[in-house]
């Protein structure tokens, strides 16, 4: 599903990723953990094509295609989804309009027929019901005036509607109460299947109680320092990241 080879990336001329390798197969859930400033968010933005993140070396293959040359919208069309750490507020754009436009754009990209208003409403109702999200959120402008929890629920809803092949969750647990955390975890688990994969980027182990990973990686100083099973997360929770940051040495 995803193959990252020797990825180097700079932001404002400063090298953040320094030869990162990562392979995720269909059906797997991987977690990346790491201290602040280790390059976790940079990795998610490089994958999704944000301006200002420059790849200097290496490649990112998604379903066998090199996505680094693609526009962000093309990557989304290919089935890549980023749940933002800080979802953006967009005044004046109703959430429904946004969701429908996003879904039909992705469908157009894939050569599928667009959904009409009726079909769309039916689909969204189904998803909000599954996730236990209040429909009222759809009428409001995208993320405007949403609480931290509502924003993350909204990300979960978008993910459920767009049904990506690979979902990257960037610090989705930050600032969440336990209920919102469960909603998000629930939507991830609903999506989970033999044809999908997830990359959960997190600072803390807590989220991994709800989304149980197949593999855990430690990202520090721009590279994967260690990989292991889910027990690695628990170990990190106890010992911290000191041994990977050089601070302990």
């Amino acid at each position, binding site marked *: 599903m995803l193959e990252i080879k020797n990825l180097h990336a700079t932001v404002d001329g400063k090298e953040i990723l320094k030869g990162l390798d990562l392979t995720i197969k269909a059906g797997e859930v991987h977690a990346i953990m790491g201290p602040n400033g280790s390059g976790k968010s940079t990795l998610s933005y490089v994958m999704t094509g944000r301006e200002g993140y420059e790849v200097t070396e290496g490649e990112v293959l998604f379903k066998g295609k090199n996505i680094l040359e693609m526009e962000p*919208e093309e990557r989304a069309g290919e089935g890549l989804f980023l749940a933002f750490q800080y979802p*953006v*507020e*967009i*005044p*004046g*754009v109703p959430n429904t309009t*946004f969701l429908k436009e*996003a879904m039909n*754009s992705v469908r157009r990209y894939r050569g599928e027929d667009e959904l009409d208003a009726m079909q769309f409403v039916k689909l969204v109702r189904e998803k909000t019901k599954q996730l236990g999200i209040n429909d009222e959120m759809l009428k409001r402008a995208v993320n405007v005036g949403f609480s931290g929890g509502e924003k993350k629920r909204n990300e979960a809803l978008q993910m459920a509607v767009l049904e990506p092949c690979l979902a990257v969750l960037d610090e989705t647990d930050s600032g969440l109460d336990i209920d919102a955390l469960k909603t998000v975890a629930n939507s991830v688990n609903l999506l989970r299947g033999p044809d999908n994969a997830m990359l959960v980027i997190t600072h803390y182990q807590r989220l991994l109680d709800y989304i149980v990973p197949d593999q855990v990686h430690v990202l520090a100083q721009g590279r994967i320092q260690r990989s292991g099973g889910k027990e690695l997360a628990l170990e990190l929770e106890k010992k911290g990241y000191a041994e990977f940051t050089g601070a302990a040495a």
Partner: protein
Amino acid sequence: MTEAFNEHFGALRDHLPGQNLSWLTALRQRGLDRFAKNGLPTPRMEAWKYTSLRPIEKVDFAAEGVPRACISIDRAPSLLPEATESHRLVFVDGHFRSDLSRLGELPEGARITTLGEQMVDDPDWLHGHLDHLEAPLVQPMLALNTAMMMNGFVLRLARGTVLPHPIEVIHLGGAGDAPLAYHPRNLVVLEEGSQATLIEHCSHLGEQPYLSNSMTEISVADGATLRHYKLQADALNAFHLATVKAEVGRDATYDSFCMTTGARLSRNEVSVRLSGQGADCHLNGAYLVRGEQHCDNTTVVDHLVPNTTCREVFKGVVDDKARAVFQGKLKVHRDAQHTNGHQLSKVLLLSDRAEINAKPELEIYADDVVCSHGATAGDLDHDALFYLRARGIPEAAARSMLIEAFLGESVDQIAAEGLCPALMASIGHWLAGSRGDY
């Protein structure tokens, strides 16, 4: 150019309506004298610092006093949904076209007519209302209008009259076979407690450049409400200069919105005098300009007495080498305690060469007031753009969504049923790169 207009006056003198009215002849002469004294506005005048009329001087405009042989069109374009009832007046190149107009039934106490008819039917009333509002700025174009005024619409509502349907005034230009200059003069008089919605729509028929130099005088008496909305979608080789003067009485409301997408050069100059306690005005607008268009919105609001309110929001989108001007002045006079005045100019500049000149001004002589002003200019929000694109929405569509949302918030303020979709559609057409025939 000043001479050219003087010549126009000479040529038209015998064709101008109301020859038999000595007060009107004298009024015209005063206008001409004032215009001759100052000439066309130049950027040396403070109020015209950012808007040069030089492009107008490059066109050899003809003056025309007699309506042309009828240009035939099936029907004038409308901004309202087909089934909407309205009172419609159509002007082509400044001339009233009764064959295209449809006044419909009016309630008692309401009169909708033209300036020309008013000169014949009720010249005394006209004498009592025309050119009676004070001008806060030096207004050479208004002086020229006063000299040359030919026709325009007149709306009179007697005390307590409520018009249930909107009045739609459609101005179509460019129909002649030479460049034409004309000077529409409109008059709106709402007596105590009356209410009306007035929708103006400026568009074009032919290919010729034209200059429309209009003047609209509005008086909204105590407790009356006028909702005044305009879409200026003139031809891209046209010049649109519009002056509005309004006087708003006790507990009266003047609610206005002006959207600009058209004209090579346009100026929308609105001055409002809030002269009765509880008077309230909303001066809002939106503009979308590109290419080499120049769009000027200039407003002056005088708070003359205590407890008056004004809310003003202009939002614009400027692309290519287009230029926009926003000048907004709030003047709170000595007696006008408890004034509440807010003004905001927000602009999206879509290219490196796009330009906005924003000049908000507060002039306050009372000490117990709440006033604010602000001006912002910037590019589209990059984070929002990335967020939309990361969800699969292509860049062009994402940009359009953000621009529509930006302007949509202004359009939503309009309190005329059926008008908002047409304005949103014209924004959509603009974004799609075409000019819809709205």
